[in-house]
């Protein structure tokens, strides 16, 4: 079939329809006239000739309609006219339209907003080329105790990186990296910035070209080479105003001059983390041991290589690594056999998405259910409307309108409704995203950058279409089958024959109640979880009046460790002197702070361990007064004193669970001794403190060893003083968080050393709140969804009952006239609502008990089948059903029987 004429006709029919119409009209008219003339020529009188011609033609409008139906693009015209008709209908019923459009807008908008986040976070989290080749080098090490953590596995050591990257056969490139902080000085105000220290292979793996300048070269990674640095886009903009001539300038980073060689583009992040500076790691190949295991590894697979192949490849290299390196003379390099190190590589995407996915999927399905409830509500409204239009539809069917035509008209109406809802929904989604960006958990990466893109708009469109098809098809299915027979039937109007019609509405209400129940159960479980988390004693008190800030002292600024501790001590004293400060102390980390915890092997005197090696324990360095500032209770013994610290006395404080595990009771622990390695001096336990949930309120408190803020470094052969160079200060004051207070803190620190920047200035409440963030976010989302579901179901029940009342006005009148009690009448309607709700609750309970299993990971201290929740929520729904049906029931019982009977 030739395409060109078809397109030409299509365009003409569509855009010059008036011309086409008048041509058609003239053609038929002239045909009629020619027929008449023919008849006259055949000898008919003019009037009869015309009549005969009309009979032969068979009706001008019918012929024209038949021609129109074959015209190409005709359907567009009829759909457009259906749309116009739909809009007219909506204008006539503004109340209905507003309710329907708003319900849809919220349903669709919520879905678009959440889809947007899911799309950005879960489906396309990695903005790197061919990101499916990217692998997180995750090592399992079941024998390594706490060192192989739940969130990172066993991290890599530089020697592992060298062996793996030199000898592997499955990777194109491989690198290790770690996060850090650095002080940038030599400018107006010293500033602490976020750094990523990266080995060779990282940039080659991520494959993102720099915006300016170049990547680090192999010679930049030479530990003896001149120092270089790369900037993030954000830091470049913030610090240098996006100066294009920045390449080649130098920056003082931790008192070291570094040359700026490149700037990374705007959307570049180190896997899922923001940073300010990239610093070359400069791994020294000639000076490595087996340990330390503190680096994240990423790699790019060769095309076609699988994760299983990569695992096998590296598994082969683990013994090679142990043979190639040692931890020093006299140590057994195959000691790590007991750790049972085995590669268990993940795709980088899986690693990044991690635990946020369960939250997002729960939220996504929740808003999906809300939309379903909204759609059933609208389907119900449409059914009611179609009911009131039944006569019209039947008459039209009788007059020859095809079923398809009526069905299309009903569908077009629904589509117009849902697409309008979709358009408004985009606005709702936009507002929703702003809200998510403000309230979403920090684990949602790139939320601030998320905007409504083409894919989200496409999703919204599809969602609108499917919603329209869904709720539109229900009335179509019911009414397009209307036959002429129904016309006669429906003239009985308000007779009680509406039972069959009522049934489909009842079904929708049952479905609605069931879905609302699932939502409410989920929301209630989250509320219980939140309450449980709030009840947990975290190991510190009143986080709102606890100010924290971090100060790092690089060895380029102060090299003598003793002087570092003295500086930290005098900072603490200066801060304590500020009016309103009760206590000021410091530690290497405060609870729930991000950053990798420290682990040491700790052996208890007189105890023998399986495999000869004591397990790894978490440790922290603390100054005197730290527990007092935090509000962590001393259970037995005493705190450190500054005399202990400066005297380098071999002392230690342990957590209560460590004391109970090792010696049975806190009191028994005092005076006992622990040590790190077999050849190291024993340290005496002088105090036992309350357990602290350092990993977050929902994680168990680990046993913790507290070392004094300064001690003899156990790793060096000759005793040298060591202590944490980066310390978080804990300051107890009612003024915590106030701007003027922070300014005073700044002055206090700078009165000791004006080169030290203050970082991470926040109250403990912020840190604590963040650990509850995921729960509170899920809670808020589910609570919103649950209350929307509840509200929509109340509206649904109300609608169905009040429609039933209006349909049965006559019956009610008769009943009242025959002396029915008003209370009985009311109860009749309330009872039917309760029956519907009861059925919905029964279905919902079954569905909910299955669905909540998916929420297990989000719950804390409450079973997914929590009996209180499963009793309370149905009661709430029953009460709602009663409330929703009570109003129409009252209206029914207060009818005047005479009026009711006369309304026919």
């Amino acid at each position, binding site marked *: *079939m*030739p395409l*060109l*004429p*078809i397109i030409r*006709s299509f365009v003409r029919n569509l855009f010059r329809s008036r011309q086409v119409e008048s*041509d*058609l009209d*003239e*053609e*038929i008219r*002239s*045909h009629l*006239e*020619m*027929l008449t*003339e*023919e008849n006259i020529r055949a000898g008919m009188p003019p009037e009869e000739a015309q009549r005969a011609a009309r009979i*032969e*033609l*068979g009706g001008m409008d*019918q*012929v024209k309609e*038949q*021609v129109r*139906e*074959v*015209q*190409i693009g005709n359907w567009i015209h009829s759909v457009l006219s259906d749309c116009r008709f739909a809009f007219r209908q909506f204008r006539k019923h503004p109340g209905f339209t507003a309710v329907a459009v708003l319900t849809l807008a919220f349903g669709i908008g919520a879905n678009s907003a959440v889809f947007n986040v899911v799309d950005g976070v879960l489906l396309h989290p990695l903005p790197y080329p061919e990101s499916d080749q990217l692998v997180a080098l995750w090592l399992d090490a079941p024998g390594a105790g706490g060192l192989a953590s739940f969130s990172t596995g066993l991290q890599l050591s530089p020697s592992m990186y060298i062996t793996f990257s030199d000898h592997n056969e499955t990777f194109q490139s491989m690198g290790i990296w770690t996060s850090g902080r650095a002080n940038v000085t030599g400018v107006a105000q010293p500033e602490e910035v976020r750094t990523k220290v990266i080995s060779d292979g990282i940039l080659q793996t991520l494959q993102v070209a720099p915006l300016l300048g170049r990547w680090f070269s192999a010679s930049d990674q030479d530990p003896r080479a001149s120092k270089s640095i790369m900037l993030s886009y954000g830091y470049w903009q913030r610090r240098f105003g996006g100066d294009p001539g920045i390449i080649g300038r130098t920056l003082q980073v931790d008192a070291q001059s570094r040359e700026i060689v490149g700037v990374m583009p705007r959307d570049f992040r180190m896997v899922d983390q923001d940073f300010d500076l990239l610093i070359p790691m400069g791994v020294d190949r000639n000076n490595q041991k087996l340990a330390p295991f503190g680096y994240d590894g990423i790699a790019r697979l060769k095309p076609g290589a699988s994760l299983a192949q990569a695992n096998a490849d590296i598994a082969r290299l683990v013994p090679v690594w142990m043979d190639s390196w040692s931890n020093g003379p006299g140590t057994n390099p195959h000691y790590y056999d007991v750790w049972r190190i085995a590669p268990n590589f993940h795709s980088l995407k899986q690693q990044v998405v991690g635990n946020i996915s369960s939250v997002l999927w729960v939220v996504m399905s929740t808003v999906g259910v809300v939309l379903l409830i909204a759609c059933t509500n609208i389907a119900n409204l449409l059914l009611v409307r179609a009911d009131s239009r039944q006569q019209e539809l039947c008459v039209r069917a009788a007059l020859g309108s095809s079923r398809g035509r009526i069905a299309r008209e009903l569908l077009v109406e629904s589509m117009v409704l849902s697409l309008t809802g979709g358009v408004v929904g985009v606005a709702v989604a936009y507002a929703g995203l702003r809200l998510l960006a403000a309230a979403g958990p920090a684990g949602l990466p790139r939320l601030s950058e998320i905007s409504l893109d083409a894919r989200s708009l496409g999703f919204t469109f599809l969602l609108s279409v499917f919603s329209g098809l869904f709720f539109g098809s229900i009335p179509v299915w019911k009414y397009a089958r209307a036959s002429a027979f129904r016309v006669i039937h429906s003239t009985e109007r308000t007779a009680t024959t509406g039972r069959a019609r009522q049934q489909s509405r009842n079904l929708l209400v049952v479905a609605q109640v069931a879905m609302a129940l699932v939502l409410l159960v989920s929301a209630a479980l989250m509320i219980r979880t939140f309450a449980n988390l709030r009840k947990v004693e975290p190991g510190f008190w009143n986080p709102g009046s606890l100010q924290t800030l971090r100060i790092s002292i690089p060895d380029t600024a102060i090299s003598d460790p003793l002087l570092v501790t003295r500086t930290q001590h005098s900072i603490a004293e200066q801060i304590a002197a500020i009016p309103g400060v009760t206590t000021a102390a410091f530690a290497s980390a405060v609870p729930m702070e991000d950053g990798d915890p420290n682990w040491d092997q700790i052996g208890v005197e007189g105890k023998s361990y399986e495999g000869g090696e004591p397990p790894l324990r978490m440790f922290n360095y603390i100054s005197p007064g730290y527990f007092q500032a935090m509000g962590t209770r001393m259970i037995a013994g005493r705190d450190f004193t500054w005399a202990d610290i400066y005297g380098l006395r071999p002392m230690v404080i342990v957590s209560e669970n460590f004391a109970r595990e090792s010696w049975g009771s806190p009191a028994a622990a005092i005076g006992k001794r622990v040590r790190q390695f077999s050849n190291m001096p024993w340290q005496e336990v002088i105090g036992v403190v309350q357990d602290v949930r350092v990993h977050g309120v929902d994680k168990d408190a680990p046993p913790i060893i507290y070392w004094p803020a300064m001690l003899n470094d156990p790793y060096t052969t000759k005793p040298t003083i060591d202590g944490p160079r980066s310390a978080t200060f804990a300051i107890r004051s009612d003024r915590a968080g106030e701007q003027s207070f922070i300014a005073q803190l700044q002055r206090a620190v700078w009165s000791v050393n004006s080169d030290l920047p203050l970082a991470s200035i926040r109250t403990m409440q912020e840190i604590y709140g963040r650990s509850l963030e995921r729960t509170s976010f899920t809670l808020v989302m589910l609570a919103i969804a649950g209350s929307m579901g509840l509200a929509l179901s109340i509206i649904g029940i109300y609608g169905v009952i009040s429609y039933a009342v209006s349909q049965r006005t006559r019956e009610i009148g008769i009943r009242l006239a025959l002396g029915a009690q008003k209370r009985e009448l009311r109860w009749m309607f309330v009872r039917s609502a309760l029956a519907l709700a009861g059925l919905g609750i029964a279905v919902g309970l079954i569905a909910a008990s299955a669905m909540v299993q998916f929420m297990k990971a989000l719950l804390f201290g409450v079973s997914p089948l929590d009996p209180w929740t499963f009793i309370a929520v149905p009661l709430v729904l029953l009460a709602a059903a009663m409330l929703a049906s009570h109003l129409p029931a009252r209206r029914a019982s207060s009818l005047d029987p005479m009026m009711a009977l006369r309304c026919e």
Partner: protein
Amino acid sequence: MAPEPTTLLQGTLDLLILKSLVAGEKHGLGISRRIEQITGGTFQVKPGSLFPALHRMEEEGWISAFWGDSENNRRAKYYRLTKAGQKQLEAETQRWTRISWAIARALEAS
């Protein structure tokens, strides 16, 4: 109405219209009368079938239309065969010949 006879009928009508235009351009009534004539009055094409068919065939490019004056000086829409229409006519003729031969053979069989 089941689809199968419709196609056959439609095909037949198309063929007859195309055939009627071989002798030269005609308006709707002319085509209708010509078909009556060449089929010996067997087929009487009603306007309700004729005009939709004409418009459809015009859109398919088999015939083209133009406005002209009728015998009685009345403005009328005329149709003429296009090249594509000619080809279509040949194809249809072949198809129809084959069918009618086959049907005739089938009816002759005992």
